[in-house]
C-alpha cells in the first residue's frame, strides 16, 4: 500500500492498483495478456501464468512483485506499465524487498537475487545459492539481507557483495519473515519455536526460544517492547522482546491457522485468521476489543492499515475495508469484477 493506493495481486492472473478513497481501479497488470501456463501436453487451458503469493514492494514510484511462475516484474506505479522483468529458476513465494537501488528477492530455485531497481540487471556477480527453496520474505536492514529457507537455515548476506555473513540452522524449516529491531533479529520456525538472535552474529539472545504448538509462518510485529506473532496452532502470542516470556495471561485463540501478519492501528491489534474471521484485540491484555468480523473466506495475505481502516484481501479474491475501531465492514469488493472493468 502506498499513498492511498493498494497494490494487490490476485489469484486470477492480475496485479491491481486500487484507490482506497473511491475504490476505483487505477490499472491492472497482466503479463502477456491471455497467456496461461499451458496445461498438460496442451490438452487443457492450464491456469493463469501470473499468480502472486508475496506482497508487492513499492519504492520510487515503482511496484515490484514476484510471481509464482518465477518472474520478478517492475511496474510503473502510476500506469502499471511494465518497466522490466527478470526470470528466476523457480516459483517466487515470498515478497521482494526494495532498498536503495536494489530489489532483493528469493526464489524456489534456492537462490537469492539482487537486481538493479531501475533496469532489473543482476547486481551481484552471481545469485546467492542455498540448499533449499526460499519461501521467506527477504528483509534488508542496513547493509545486510536476512532471509529464511526451507533448508532449516536462516541466512545473513552482505547487501553489496552477496556474500554470506552468517547462517544458523534450526530444527524446522523457515518460511517466516525475519523481524529486525535494533541489534536483534526475531524469527519463527516450523519447529514451532520463536527465536531471538543477535543480528550481527546469529547467536541466540533468549535463554530458550518461545514454544508454540504448531509452526510459525508469518511476519511478526514489534510494538512497544512486545512482539506479536500468530501461529498455525490458531493462537496469537504476545512475547516480551527482551526475555521471550509471554506477556498475556493466555494466548488469544482464533478459529484457524494464523498465517496473516498482525497489525496495529488506533491502539487495536488486528489479526486475520484462516477461519475467515478478523479479530480486534487489546494489545496490552490479549482480550477481545470487538466481536470477530466474519469475511466468509480464509485470509492468508498480510493486511494494511491506512488511517482508520484496515484492508484485507481474502482467498476468494475479495478486498475488504474494516473500521479499525469497531471492526465494522466499510466496504467489500470482488477483485474479479475489478479485473473485468
Amino acid at each position, binding site marked *: 500500500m502506498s499513498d492511498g493506493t493498494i497494490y494487490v495481486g490476485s489469484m486470477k492472473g492480475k496485479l491491481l492498483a486500487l484507490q482506497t478513497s473511491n475504490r476505483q481501479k487505477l490499472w491492472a497488470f497482466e503479463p502477456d495478456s491471455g497467456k496461461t501456463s499451458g496445461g*498438460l*501436453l496442451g490438452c487443457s487451458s492450464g491456469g493463469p501464468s501470473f499468480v502472486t*503469493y508475496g506482497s508487492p514492494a513499492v519504492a520510487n514510484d515503482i511496484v515490484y512483485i514476484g510471481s*509464482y511462475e518465477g518472474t520478478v516484474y517492475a511496474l510503473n506505479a502510476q500506469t502499471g506499465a511494465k518497466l522490466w522483468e527478470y526470470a528466476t529458476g523457480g*516459483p517466487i*513465494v515470498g515478497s521482494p524487498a526494495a532498498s536503495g537501488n536494489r530489489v532483493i528477492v528469493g526464489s524456489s530455485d534456492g537462490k537469492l537475487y539482487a537486481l538493479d531497481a531501475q533496469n532489473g540487471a543482476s547486481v551481484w556477480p552471481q545469485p546467492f545459492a542455498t540448499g*533449499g*527453496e526460499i*519461501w521467506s520474505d527477504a528483509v534488508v536492514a542496513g547493509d545486510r539481507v536476512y532471509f529464511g529457507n*526451507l533448508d*532449516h537455515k536462516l541466512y545473513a548476506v552482505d547487501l553489496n557483495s552477496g556474500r554470506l555473513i552468517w547462517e544458523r540452522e534450526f*530444527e*524446522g*524449516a523457515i*518460511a517466516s519473515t525475519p523481524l529486525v529491531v535494533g541489534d536483534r533479529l526475531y524469527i519463527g520456525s*516450523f*519447529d*514451532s519455536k520463536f527465536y531471538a538472535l543477535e543480528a550481527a552474529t546469529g547467536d541466540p539472545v533468549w535463554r530458550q526460544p518461545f514454544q508454540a*504448538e*504448531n*509452526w510459525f*509462518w508469518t511476519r511478526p510485529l514489534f510494538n512497544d517492547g512486545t512482539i506479536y506473532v500468530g501461529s*498455525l496452532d490458531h493462537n496469537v502470542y504476545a512475547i516480551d522482546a527482551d526475555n521471550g516470556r509471554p506477556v498475556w495471561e493466555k494466548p488469544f485463540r482464533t478459529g484457524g*491457522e494464523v*498465517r496473516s501478519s498482525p497489525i496495529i492501528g488506533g491502539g487495536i491489534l488486528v489479526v486475520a485468521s*484462516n477461519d475467515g474471521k478478523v479479530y480486534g484485540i487489546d494489545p496490552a491484555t490479549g482480550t477481545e476489543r470487538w466481536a470477530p468480523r466474519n469475511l466468509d473466506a480464509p485470509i*492468508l495475505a498480510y493486511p494494511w492499515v491506512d488511517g482508520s481502516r484496515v484492508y484485507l484481501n481474502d482467498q476468494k479474491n475479495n478486498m475488504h475495508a474494516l473500521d479499525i475501531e469497531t471492526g465494522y465492514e466499510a466496504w467489500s469488493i470482488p477483485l474479479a469484477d475489478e479485473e473485468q472493468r
Partner: protein
Amino acid sequence: MIELWNIVLLEPMVNGLVIMSRALGGSFGMAIIALTIVINILILPLTVRQIRSTTRMQSMQPKLQEIQKKYAKDKRKLQQETMRLYREAGMNPVGCAFPMLIQFPIWIALYQSVMQTLATTPERLLELSQRLYTWPYVQQAIPQPKTFLWLNLAEPNFPLTLLIMATMWVTQKMSTVPSADPKQQQTQNMMQWMMPMMFGFIFIMFPSGLALYIVVMNIFRMAVQYYMVRGQRGLASLLPIPGRTAPPEPQGWAPPKQPKLKLKGWTPPAGPVKEGKTTDEEAGITNSEGEDSGYGSSRIKRKNRRRGH
C-alpha cells in the same frame, strides 16, 4: 465424514510417508515404494483371490457363452442360469473387482498425501501443518524432497506413465487365459490394451508420486502372478515364441470328472485333460483353501476319496 477420512486414512498415510522417508535417508520416492510394498503385502490375500477369480472366470467363459446362446430370448432364465453356474462353481462375479475396489480409497488418500506432503504451494503446506503429528521426528522432516531419480514426484511424468502402461499390459497379459473362441479372444485382446490405455490417460495428469505407486504395485502383482502360475502362463508366455499357439481349450478350467454338478446343457470341452490331474493343478493354481481352481473337480475328487471311491 471428512474428519473421519482424515483421521483414519489421510493422516496416518501422510505421517507414515514422512516417517518412512526420513528413515530411508530422506527419499520420498523410496517412502512411496516402501508404502506400496507394505499395502500390497497387507492386501495380498485379496490379490491372490482376485487372480484366481479372474482365471476361473475366464475359464468359465465357454459355459457362460453356451448359456447365453441357449437362453438368448429368455433374459430371466439366462440370469438364473448364470447365477446358478457361479453359485455351483463357488464364485462371486464381483469378487474379481473387490481387491481393485478396496484400493481406490488408498489411491485417493495417497494422491492427497503426495500432494500435501510435497506441498508445492503455500496452501498445500498450510494443510500439511494440520495433518502432521506433533512428533519432532515428523515435524523436522518438512519439507520433503520432491525429486526421486529423474522424477519430480509432485508433477506428472510421461516416461513413468509409459511404464504404468507397460507394466499393466504385462500384468493383464499374465492373468489372461488365451481362448480358442475367436470372439472371446478378441474381447480379451481389446481389454488387454484398453486397461493400460485408460490408466495411462488418467495417470498422465497425476503427480508422478502416485504413478510410482501404480508401477510398483503392478510389478508386485506381476511377481505374485508369476509365483502363482510358476512360469506356465507367466513371463514366458509374453515372448513371441514361433509355433506357439493358444491352448486348445480353456486352460485353468476343467470339467468335473464326476458330473455331480449336473449343469444343464453342459458338455465337457475337448481340451486335453490328463487323468487325475486338471490343467489347474498342472499350472499350480489353487484356491484359498488349497483346492484346485478348476471348480468342482478337486472338490469332487476329495469328496469321493472321503467316501472311499
